[in-house]
């Protein structure tokens, strides 16, 4: 049973560019959340998708957007990249939205130069 898978594992982009990160949830999970983990800090909630809609959003600008597909997989898009967007981006999946345990992927390490 595959857990949460994310791609790519590493990515280098230039300031001003756009990036798309992908996530496949654990089998049987229909809710996907995205987190940003800056170096030396804990993960910060970006947003959550359920039934192909954004259900909750953290304190991130509109440059951060997402999508969920009918098969529950998800994408995180970041436009107009800033140096400060360099971080580990984590995807977490869970069954439903009711405060259950979240399972995390390995993350995508994004470096903006």
């Amino acid at each position: 049973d595959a857990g949460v898978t994310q791609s790519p594992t590493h990515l280098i982009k230039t300031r001003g560019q756009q990036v798309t990160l992908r996530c496949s949830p654990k089998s049987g999970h229909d809710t996907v959340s995205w987190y940003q983990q800056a170096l030396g800090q804990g993960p910060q909630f970006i947003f959550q998708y359920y039934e192909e809609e954004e259900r909750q959003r953290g304190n991130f600008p509109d440059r951060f957007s997402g999508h969920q597909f009918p098969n529950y997989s998800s994408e995180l898009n970041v436009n107009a990249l800033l140096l400060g967007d360099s971080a580990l981006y984590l995807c977490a999946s869970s069954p439903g939205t009711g405060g259950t345990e979240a399972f995390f992927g390995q993350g995508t390490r994004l470096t903006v130069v």
Partner: protein
Amino acid sequence: AQSVSQHNHHVILSEAASLELGCNYSYGGTVNLFWYVQYPGQHLQLLLKYFSGDPLVKGIKGFEAEFIKSKFSFNLRKPSVQWSDTAEYFCAVNPLRAAGNKLTFGGGTRVLVKP
């Protein structure tokens, strides 16, 4: 806004020593509480969770945590650590009143166990 504080950023121990990591949260309502661990090069994994009931919860690998509601605390303990417990530990909170399962994490504690 809710927040989670982990008191120690770095902890260095010798094998067989006891470990206690502090976690305090600021949220007045009912919460679900979690401890996650991130071993070097690996993804975040759940160590243990508290939803309700016995405030002393046991997790994997000999870890336990105690929820003290009056202190808004959820401290993690292990009586005797091993070298393999070297990792970063994160406390996280999910307020039940909020829709969904958004987690608010603490800043993490890096634990180094010397052999």
